[in-house]
């Protein structure tokens, strides 16, 4: 048994305990799925047959497909999820895990699945930002980016859409919308405006 795969699988089960877990196995094909989804080995939640799973994962809900970062090593999601729990709390970490289960077309045909680039950006943001005392909630954009929003000191919303190296910022109090690099100075300046 690949121990890393096993550990991540258990983490995945936190997201949808009634689902199935499926793991990439480049040697296996599964009939009935679109080309980009065929290389999957489905395993029930007991995790008894996931020894070869190493490259990617998806959550299955019976009768429907639900892809999570189809080609992404699941260690990225797990790592960002851990950092989210530390910086934003367990509820936000659970939300991130659940948002990662949405497939392309999740909003009545529109809306992309959560992108690897946004996860990379979120990790970078969490590494440098101090969200202490901010009531941050997570959402998913049509572009597949993580959205973070919170009420500022006056109760007006601040929202960030996180891409790999930059974030789009919206400040409801002033109506401003602008882009910032995910860098310590820029992030710290933005957060200090909303306290």
């Amino acid at each position, binding site marked *: 048994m690949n121990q890393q795969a096993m550990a991540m699988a258990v983490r995945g089960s936190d997201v*949808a305990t009634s689902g199935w877990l499926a793991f990439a196995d480049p040697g296996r094909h599964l009939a009935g799925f679109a080309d980009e989804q065929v290389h999957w080995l489905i395993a029930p939640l007991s995790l008894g047959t996931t020894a070869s799973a190493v490259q990617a994962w998806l959550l299955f809900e019976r009768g429907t497909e639900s892809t999570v970062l189809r080609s992404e090593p699941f260690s990225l999601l797990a790592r960002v999820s851990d950092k989210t729990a530390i910086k934003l709390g367990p509820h936000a970490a659970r939300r991130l895990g659940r948002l990662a289960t949405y497939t392309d077309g999740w909003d009545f045909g529109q809306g992309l699945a959560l992108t690897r680039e946004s996860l990379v950006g979120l990790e970078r943001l969490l590494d440098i930002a101090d969200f202490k005392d901010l009531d941050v909630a997570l959402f998913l954009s049509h572009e597949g980016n993580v959205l973070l929003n919170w009420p500022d000191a006056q109760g007006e919303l601040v929202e960030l859409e996180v891409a790999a190296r930059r974030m789009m910022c*919206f400040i409801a109090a002033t109506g401003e919308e602008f882009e910032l690099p995910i860098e310590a100075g820029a992030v710290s300046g933005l957060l200090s405006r909303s306290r």
Partner: protein
Amino acid sequence: MADHVNDLVDPLLARPLVDDEEMVLRALHEPFWDAEKQRATPSAFGNGNRFSLSRPAILPESAIIARWREDLERPTRRLEALAEVRVGDIRACAPPGDTQTLSLNVFADPDLKRNNPAHAELVGSDPEVTRLRNIPRGIGNRILQQCRIRLL
């Protein structure tokens, strides 16, 4: 000449308009709605140029919600909220005055494939309603503030 002019209009903007007095509904599912925090994102109505709506004037609200549940719900996902707003109130969220660069319109868009005659779309366009245009998050936030959010 008339044909040539028509060619310049995006077909998505040539559909029948929904009357200003009609109410429309937007499903606030998990990516747009945090049930624990009871908070939505302005991106439910902004940061894009097309947003899916439903018209209770065409189908009873209970039937609309039943279709949403069919489309969106899974054993581990439950649709927990909707946003209700008058079409005229959405349109009034467009930037005012002569400098207006954005028009907001709601078009009837019966989805026959999904057997949903009540489907409609909020679409952002130029003021002449010929080209699609992004609805900024700030406008999305204004629309959200006009909505009555109801828990399901």
